């Protein structure tokens, strides 16, 4: 089984998921709308005063991004589980973790990137200083894939359940905490003009860890859920 | 003796902690005992029904 066919299977899964997402692109918009609405609630709930919003902004944007990803996670395996495509994936010659990596990458491209592109607009909504926006984008670029990778483990564990949605957030949110802490702090430090290299390195380390271990755990979880 | 219960003014905090601890620890002992009785009873009933 040559490596070329493994890459080919990986890219087929990726292309298939992207075409599927494109064919049902109205669903792609939901996480983005959720992201915008949740953030626009805060000025109404707390206060429109720029100084207050500025201090809140990094945390609010990151919590909203986290919840938006959580909402969109369910679609990763749900449709494949219902029509049997997930079984075919488990019965493929290739290692399941590589195929899962393809699906997670597709999920991140479909939901992570739009959140990333929306972030500057929302940073302006919350009066964030312009020099902290690059930091926000970097943390979303580094943190986004971690959210998808770790989220995939939770989705794989709850895919067989009838009402797995709420349970999914209970399983996954505690695992999101390190990413949230370092990312939100990096953005607020950048707003205050402090150095943020340390936080970004840590996010990079978390990404490397998630990239290597998460697909294997997800593959094991899928094999167990489909038993 | 009352001075002991007074706990140097922190009586409420110390005794609530120890009280809660006792409740939780004892509850986790009683629950399995009840569960064992319940299991044995259902098994007895099932066996009697099977044999009859």
């Amino acid at each position, binding site marked *: 089984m040559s490596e070329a066919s493994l890459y080919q299977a990986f890219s087929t899964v990726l292309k298939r998921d992207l075409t599927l997402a494109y064919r049902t692109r109205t669903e792609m918009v939901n996480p983005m709308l959720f992201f915008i609405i949740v953030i626009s609630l805060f000025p109404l709930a707390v206060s429109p005063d720029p100084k207050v919003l500025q201090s809140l902004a990094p945390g609010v944007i990151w919590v909203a991004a986290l919840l938006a990803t959580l909402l969109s996670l369910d679609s990763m395996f749900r449709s494949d589980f219902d029509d049997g495509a997930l079984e075919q994936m488990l019965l493929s010659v290739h290692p399941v973790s590589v195929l899962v990596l393809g699906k997670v990458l597709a999920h991140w491209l479909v939901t992570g990137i739009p959140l990333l592109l929306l972030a500057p607009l929302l940073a302006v909504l919350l009066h964030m200083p312009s020099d902290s926006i690059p930091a926000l984008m970097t943390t979303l670029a580094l943190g986004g894939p971690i959210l998808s990778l770790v989220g995939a*483990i939770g989705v794989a*564990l*709850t895919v*067989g*359940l009838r009402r*797995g949605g709420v*349970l999914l957030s*209970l*399983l996954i*949110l*505690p*695992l999101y*905490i*390190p990413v949230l*802490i*370092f990312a939100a*702090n990096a953005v607020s430090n950048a707003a205050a003009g402090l150095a943020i290299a340390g936080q970004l390195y840590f996010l990079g380390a*978390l990404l490397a*860890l998630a990239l290597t*271990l998460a697909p294997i*755990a997800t593959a*094991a*979880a899928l094999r*167990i*859920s489909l*038993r | 003796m009352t001075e*002991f219960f007074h*706990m*140097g*003014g*922190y009586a409420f*905090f*110390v005794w*609530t*902690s*120890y009280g*809660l*601890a006792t409740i*939780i*620890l004892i509850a*986790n*002992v009683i629950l*399995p*005992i009840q*569960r*064992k009785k319940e*299991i*044995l009873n259902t*098994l*007895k009933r*099932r*066996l009697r029904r099977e044999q009859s």
Partner: protein
Amino acid sequence: MWLFFHKLGSPKYFYDLSGKFLPWFGGLTLILMLLGSYWGLVVAPADYQQGDSYRIIYIHVPAAWMSLFVYIVMASAGAIGLIWKMKMADVVASCSAPLGAAFTFLALVTGSLWGKPMWGTYWVWDARLTSELILLFLYLGFMGLEAAIDDKRTAANACAVLALVGVVNIPIIHYSVEWWNTLHQGSTVARVDKPAMDVNMLIPLLIMWFAFMFYYGTTLFMRARNEVLYRERDTAWVKEMVTE
């Protein structure tokens, strides 16, 4: 050792073995608990700074330690169940979860009760208490997943994966919370480092630590034996035992 480990896999062998140990563990737990509490509450001198409120550590510290220890036991039992497909390992993991959650809850409440006299408020986003709270969420997630899956073996395997993922994340979460805590709380709250513990204060802590360990052993055996009885209810030895 390997034969023992393998024999432990058979439910009946575990049931008989734990039956022998249970009275000893129970008795030891009771003695150690009483001795430790008496020593901690009466004999140990008052703390020069916190007065008598520090005596809560004889519950808080062992409970906090047990909450972490039980999670590690759950993760390793889950791994054994996954890799060698040992039914008993799944039983140990699923019986440990509620106990671990109880220890975590106890550590949280006693921590906040201890915090009130020391910091003035019931809840402080202190590094240890926050990690303890997140650990409680991990336990609740574990028990939630186990309750949600009908088939017992699938539930055990799924929870094993979750526990392994959790145990990898615990140090990361703890480090992040510590780092986050020094960031915000560092300056305001004077770090209360442990006062040089007078030996009379330290001994009850060790006794309570052993008491909690034996307590965990006792209640785990009790729950596991119930689970074995339930799962092996169709086997001859259980039926014969029931009709005695």
